[in-house]
């Protein structure tokens, strides 16, 4: 896909460019796929679009097994899919995308795999903030949320650098949850609120749902409206429990994350639009 840079003088930009005609001669099939995708996005954009969507990117390892490649390759394809999905979401006008990249429970996996995942994470974070067309084109603020204390210091440095480089981007947010569990997030919110009570900033009687919510990692984000999990598993696996347990549509999709495509998203967004119009 070719990217054209637009001048920043025009009004807020969600650039979606029609695929360049030159692609037709080099790769006709991908040209027509791109055209179709472009048209689908244009159609969906006419209706209401959710503000905040979450993804559990499940099935990278099983996909690798299925196509007979190394586990690492599966994770790599998963990251590629993340960028592609992010691109589609942002073209649609979604403001916040939150993804489950690494669970605190995943530290229990074989050491080599965790190590490889962390290395891949580092490389991809650097790529996201330095070379990613999607991040640049849409002005995406990249945040890594979760229990930072469990990460190595060099990864923490890269996370801080990512935050710093993209902090002036205000058009959209990508939340990468790593290492994360929802219970750990709620615990950290409770701890934060208790600390405030201890320091006399608030009274115990002032403690409400809203105060707890303001202390979650997602406090700056609009409410989560759709949560999508791939690979056919039907659990939340400790992801965004607080954010998804009300006013949110949860969708379990029966394909591995690297196979996830706009065709899987289409019915979900169409149903969202139908529901919204009914209300």
């Amino acid at each position, binding site marked *: 896909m070719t990217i054209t840079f637009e001048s920043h003088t025009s009004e807020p930009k969600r650039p979606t460019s029609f695929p360049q005609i030159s692609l037709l001669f080099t790769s006709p099939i991908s040209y027509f796929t791109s055209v179709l995708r472009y048209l689908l996005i244009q159609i969906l954009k006419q209706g209401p679009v959710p503000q905040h969507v979450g993804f559990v990117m499940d099935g990278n390892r099983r996909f690798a097994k299925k196509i007979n490649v190394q586990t690492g390759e599966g994770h790599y394809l998963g990251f590629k899919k993340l960028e592609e999905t992010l691109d589609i979401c942002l073209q649609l006008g979604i403001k916040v995308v939150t993804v489950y990249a690494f669970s605190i429970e995943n530290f229990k996996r074989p050491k080599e795999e965790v190590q490889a995942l962390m290395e891949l994470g580092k490389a991809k974070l650097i790529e996201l903030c330095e070379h990613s067309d999607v991040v640049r084109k849409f002005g995406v603020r990249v945040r890594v949320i979760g229990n930072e204390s469990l990460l190595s210091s060099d990864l923490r440095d890269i996370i801080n650098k990512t935050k710093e480089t993209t902090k002036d981007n205000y058009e959209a947010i990508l939340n990468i949850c790593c290492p994360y569990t929802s*219970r750990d997030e709620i615990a950290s919110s409770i701890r934060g609120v208790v600390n405030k*009570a201890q320091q006399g900033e608030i009274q*115990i009687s002032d*403690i409400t749902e809203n105060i*707890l919510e303001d202390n979650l990692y997602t406090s700056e984000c609009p409410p989560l409206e759709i949560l999508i999990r791939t690979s056919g598993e039907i659990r939340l696996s400790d992801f965004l429990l607080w954010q998804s347990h009300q006013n949110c549509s*949860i969708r*379990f999709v029966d394909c591995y994350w690297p196979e996830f495509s706009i065709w899987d998203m289409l019915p979900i967004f169409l149903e969202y639009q139908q529901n919204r119009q009914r209300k």
Partner: protein
Amino acid sequence: MALKARCEHNIGEQVEIGYREIGKLACWAASAGIKVLSIYEPEGKLKRIVQQLQHHVDAEARRFFAREGNIPILRVSVVYNSSSMEDIQADLQIILLSRSDGRGRIVEVTKSLASETLQGNLQSDAIDVERIDQAFSDSHFTEPQQLIMFSPEIDLQGFPPWQLRLTEIFHVAGNKHFDYSVFRKALIKYAKIDKRFGR
């Protein structure tokens, strides 16, 4: 497999919640060997009629298990009441849940942890997942293994979030009715999932 299962039943708004449905559900669950059945209704309407529900559940059980030698004891209660010996002996615990058992309960836990901290009995650093989970453990309502939705979409309507961590969420797309076939499919799906984990 289902013997150890705790089954959750979530009644969507589309379903008219009646004594009869709850009575039936309790009997299905008991005959499947389920130990704890939690029923979620956001507004808390069910929690106000515990006595009547108990009465209907007993009546339904006498009908349902008429041909069996002994009729199982099905005990209806709300979440946070002190347990008695009677509860422990029940074959099936039926717990009635509402919205306030979700975020509201987390607020209550936060308040009690805050007051413990202010009294100097607890360091705020010691407030972690385990400590919070402990604060929830004073009820029969622990993490359900499965949640059955009788609604066409998955909208959890405020179901207690802390306990949803690993719950298998079962729903049949398009289903709008309270139906035994949904319950049966859910149990079959649950049994299959567990088998795969064993591999």
